[in-house]
C-alpha cells in the first residue's frame, strides 16, 4: 500500500510539474509518450562495475584522454 501511494504521489507530482511548466510556455502538449520513452533508461541494468560509478563521465572521457 505504501508502495502504491508512493507511485501515485510521484505521478501526481509529475503531472503537476508539467502542468506548471506548460503554463509557463503556453504549451498544453501531452508529453506522456516522450516521457515513457526517455524513462526507459531508469530500468536499464548497467553492469555492477558501472553501477558503482557515482558520476564517472567527464569531458576528458569524451575526448578519450582519461
Amino acid at each position: 500500500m505504501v508502495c502504491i501511494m508512493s507511485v501515485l504521489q510521484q505521478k501526481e507530482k509529475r503531472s503537476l510539474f508539467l502542468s506548471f511548466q506548460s503554463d509557463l510556455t503556453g504549451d498544453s502538449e501531452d508529453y506522456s509518450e516522450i516521457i515513457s520513452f526517455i524513462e526507459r533508461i531508469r530500468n536499464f541494468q548497467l553492469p555492477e562495475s558501472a553501477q558503482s560509478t557515482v558520476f564517472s563521465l567527464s569531458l576528458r572521457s569524451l575526448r578519450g584522454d582519461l
Partner: protein
Amino acid sequence: MTSDFSPLWSIQDYRDGFLVDGLSYDDLYKDLITTLDQDPTNAFISTIKSIPTKPNDFSKSLAGIPIAVKDNICYSKFPTTCASKMLKDWVAPYDATVVSYLLNDEATIIGKTNLDEFAMGNDTSTSFFGKSFNPWDSFKRFSPGGSSGGSAIAVTLGYSPVSIGSDTGGSIRCPASFNGILGLKPTYGRVSRYGLISYAHTLDQIGIFARYVPDLSLILEIISQNDSKDLTYKHQPFKSSLDIDNPLSVGVANNSFDVVPSDQQIQFKHILSMLEDKGYISIVPITLDELDILLPTYYVTAFSEAYSNLVRYSGQQYGFDAGNIFSTRLEGFSEEVKRRFNLGSFSLKTGYDEQLYAKSQKIRSYYVDTFTELFKKVDVIALPTMLDAAFSWDEFQSPIDSYKADLLTVPANLVGIPALSVPAGFTQKQGVKLPFGLQLLGGWWQEQKLLQIAYALQQITDYHLQTPPNLLRTN
C-alpha cells in the same frame, strides 16, 4: 569567370582557376550573388549582397574560396539567428574561432545557412525562416535532413565546395546522407566550439561538409588549430595522409545493417566487399548490442542541457523581448524548442535528476568503455548513417517518430568519437532518386582513418559526383 567553371569544382579547382586560369574573383561573386538570391531550396538565412573584398594573398590555401556557415555559429558580418525568432536580429560582436581560422586563410564567407531552430531537429523544418527542401526532388516533397540542412544543400548545389555545420546527435551526418555528400563530426574537443551557440554542450561539435575528401581534410586541418577560449578543446594537430598503406580493419556487426531497407543493405555489403577486394580494408565481425538504449539516453542528456542553455533567453539581456519572460518564451520559441525546454526542466527536476540525467551519464560512461574495447579490436566501425534515405514531409506522425530516426547517429556524440557519412549509393522513394550514406566511426582522434577509407571509396565509385537532376547551380 572561365568558360569551364563547374559547380562541382574542388578547392584546388578554384585555386587553379584564380592562380592559373584567370578566374575573375569579381565575376565569380557577381554570379554567385545572383544564384544565391534565386536559390529554390531556402538553404540560406542571410547571404552576401555585394561583391566581397578581394583577398590580399591568393597563395593562401583558402583565398577566395566560397564557404557557407551554419547560422548557429557567430560571424560578426551577418546576424546569427539560430533560425529563431528569439535571435532573428542579433549580430554577434565577435567571430567564432572556426570563422576566424577560415578568414585567416582568406576564405570568403558567402552566407549563413538554414537549420532547425537552435539545431533541435533532423529535418530543417522548424526554422523561423521557413523549411529548407531536399534538392534531389524538384517538387520539394523531401527534407534535406538536419539540423544543418542548409549547409549540406550549399555543397550539394555547388554554391560552395565546403561548408561548416554543427552535430549534436547527427546534425551533420544526417543531411550529408540525405544530400549525397561527405559530412564529418570530429572527435569531441578536436575543433573549438567558441562561438557556437550551445544546444547541448557535452554533445555539440562543429564539423564539415564537402564533396571531396581532400577538401574536407584541408578544412579540418585549418579549423582544428589551437584555441584557448574553449576549455573543452584539446590540441591534437591534424595532418592527413589519405593513402592506405596497410588494410584498415573495419568492424561490422552482424545485425547492424538489418535496420535499413533491403536494397540499401545489399548496397552497403557491395561497397564494403569492393573495398576489401581492393585491399583497402579487412572486415571483422563484431558484436554491438543494445544500441537502442542510447536513444533515450541521448534525449535525456540533450533535453537537460538544452534547458540549461535556453534559460538565458529571457528577453532581458538580448534578443526578442515581448515585455515579460513568459511572453518572450511563449512567442520567441517554436513548439519543438518549447517541448525540449519543458522536458529538460522535467529531467533535471529534483527527484528525477538521479533517475534521468545522472543515469544517462552513467550509461554514457559505460558505453565509452564499450567503444574503447571495440577500438582495441578494429580501426573503424561501419554502420548505415540513417535508417533510410530522406524523409518525406508527411513521414512522421509524432515528435517521437522523428527522434527515433537518430538511432544510428547519436552513439558517436554520446561517447565523443569521430564519425563520417560517406555517399554510398542511391535508392528510390515515391519515384524520386535519393542518395544515402555509409557511416564510419573511429576511435578518439582517428579522423584520418575515416578519411582514408572515404578517399579509397571515392577512387572506386562515382556516387559523390552525381548531382540533383534539376536544381544544380547553372552559373
